[in-house]
């Protein structure tokens, strides 16, 4: 039987707490979940000491849900490695939100911390607010960042977003910090706001779409002037699905830059707003 599990944070903990391994699951039992151990610094505490836990039965074949309420800025690893179900955070989330996630959906109403969606493999994450640094990047030592799935951010993202990204789609409605899509291997990043310095630094392949103002062309990017109507039509259709500033990108072939020439130059920037 499917369940909707509610965790309500009583008050922000004094220390950071990892909520790893707490994911939407069928047949979750509130009493059992409340007894699961969490580490508060060096101290093991029961989940129930930090959260009010309740569960609600859903129709048998419904997707299991997990709802986390309260100011969870200090709660890390929410939805980390998740492999299905729906997770909603009504408020803010800590670091590593949805890291290494395989499938399912995470919806965060507020902001999330650093390293959100890093090494994301599949599924969909939507952030109502903004993200800290290293979003959609690689975990320390990882050779690839985000490698599948979709990440939609309604607000701004910090520095090093999509570092070493390999696959998947990332849409940022707000602004991005420095080094957006640096060392990108492949995948698609669409940005509606402004990009910080060193955007696309060392990118090898992949696509950056600037739905809003175009950044200055770095010296290691050059323009190509061929007809990419077909590809643009395919990509534009996919972007439009996510609405907002991406809903009405012009149909004419956008200006296209390739780079980073220092890293092979097979990455591309598409600048639909530019003439």
């Amino acid at each position, binding site marked *: 039987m499917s369940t909707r599990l509610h965790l309500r944070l009583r008050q922000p903990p004094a220390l950071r707490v990892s909520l790893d391994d707490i994911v939407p699951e069928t047949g979750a039992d509130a009493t059992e979940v409340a007894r699961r151990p969490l580490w508060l610094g060096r101290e093991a505490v029961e989940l129930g000491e930090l959260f009010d836990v309740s569960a609600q039965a859903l129709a048998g074949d419904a997707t299991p849900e997990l709802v986390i309420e309260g100011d969870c800025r200090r709660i890390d690893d929410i939805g980390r490695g998740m492999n299905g179900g729906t997770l909603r955070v009504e408020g803010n989330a800590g670091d590593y939100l949805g890291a290494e996630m395989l499938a399912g959906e995470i919806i965060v109403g507020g902001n999330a911390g650093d390293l959100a969606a890093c090494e994301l493999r599949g599924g969909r994450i939507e952030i109502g607010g903004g993200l800290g640094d290293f979003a959609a990047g690689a975990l320390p030592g990882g050779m690839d960042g985000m490698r599948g799935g979709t990440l939609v951010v309604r607000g701004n993202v910090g520095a090093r977003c999509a570092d070493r990204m390999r696959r998947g789609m990332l849409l940022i409605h707000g602004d991005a910090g420095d080094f957006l899509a640096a060392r990108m291997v492949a995948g698609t990043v669409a940005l509606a706001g402004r990009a910080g310095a060193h955007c696309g630094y060392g990118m090898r392949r992949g696509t950056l779409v600037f739905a809003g103002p175009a950044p200055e062309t770095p010296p290691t990017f050059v323009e190509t002037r*061929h007809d990419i109507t077909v590809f643009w039509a395919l990509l534009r259709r996919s972007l439009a699905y996510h609405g907002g500033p991406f809903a009405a990108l012009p149909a004419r072939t956008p200006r296209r830059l390739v780079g980073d020439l220092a890293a092979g130059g097979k990455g*591309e920037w598409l600048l639909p707003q530019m003439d």
Partner: protein
Amino acid sequence: MSATETTTRMQRNGIDIDDTFAEAFPMKATRLIITAHNDTWAQHAAIAATGFATSVIACGCEAAIERPLSPDETPDGRPGVAVLLFSMSGKELAKQVERRVGQCVLTCPTTAVYAGLKDGEPIALAKNLRFFGDGWQISKMIDGTRYWRVPTMDGEFVGEETTFVVKAVGGGNLLILARDTEAALAAAEAGVAAMRAVPGVIMPFPGGVVRSGSKVGSKYASLSASTNDAFCPALTPLARKTELDPGVNCVMEIVIDGLTEADVSAAMRAGMDAIVARGAEAGVSRLSAGNYGGKLGPFHFHLRRILGGEGAA
């Protein structure tokens, strides 16, 4: 022996419908969507890619245009054409797809190619054609589908990485027995036109019509098929067995390949309806079908059942 002599007659609009069936075979098929800058170039690519594909006996596959597609029906919003390709095995089909798309679509100005089916056994579409890009090719995943972008002199060729192969039905047919050439051709054309409106089928012969209907075997050991003497008016007085009545001086056949049994059946029905609607006055006296006694192919399309109802009209 003619079926009409042993059972009750069924006549529609003065045309005799034989109590017989078309015998068809399992095949493997895929649908491709070819788009281009405009209709003309999409047609050029599609015609070339489905050329010399009348019969698996020597062409490797049977292929034809299924129908033109309007811009709002294609993945990239440009005019396009849907083509269907049929082969006896998935492996042979894969080979044919790669050759035909490589030589006739990749080469054709402004075209792009997509899988026209979303389920089935995957085979390479642009997967190996990408190497034409000599390292400059770019892969792109969009919403779970991988495309290859290969730089070409007109810009870039975009092709979906894989297409999908499904089980299909090949060899549905309809024999039109008529007074003379004029009448047979006109009826065949009308039949093919009606069948083309049915989704999921192609009529792979030139203009959808074949005049060299065949039987299994030959007096020559090296040939596996030879002329269908029972339906050749030239041989009415000579052949050991004839299916033709006096007054039938020209026979045409329409061969139909379809993605499903129901598609083939629907096409045969549409074709027959169109011919029947023209009436016996137009010169067609009988409709029949080719089979091998029902032992070779698992699909049997009974003309009378398809038309619905037994007995005379």
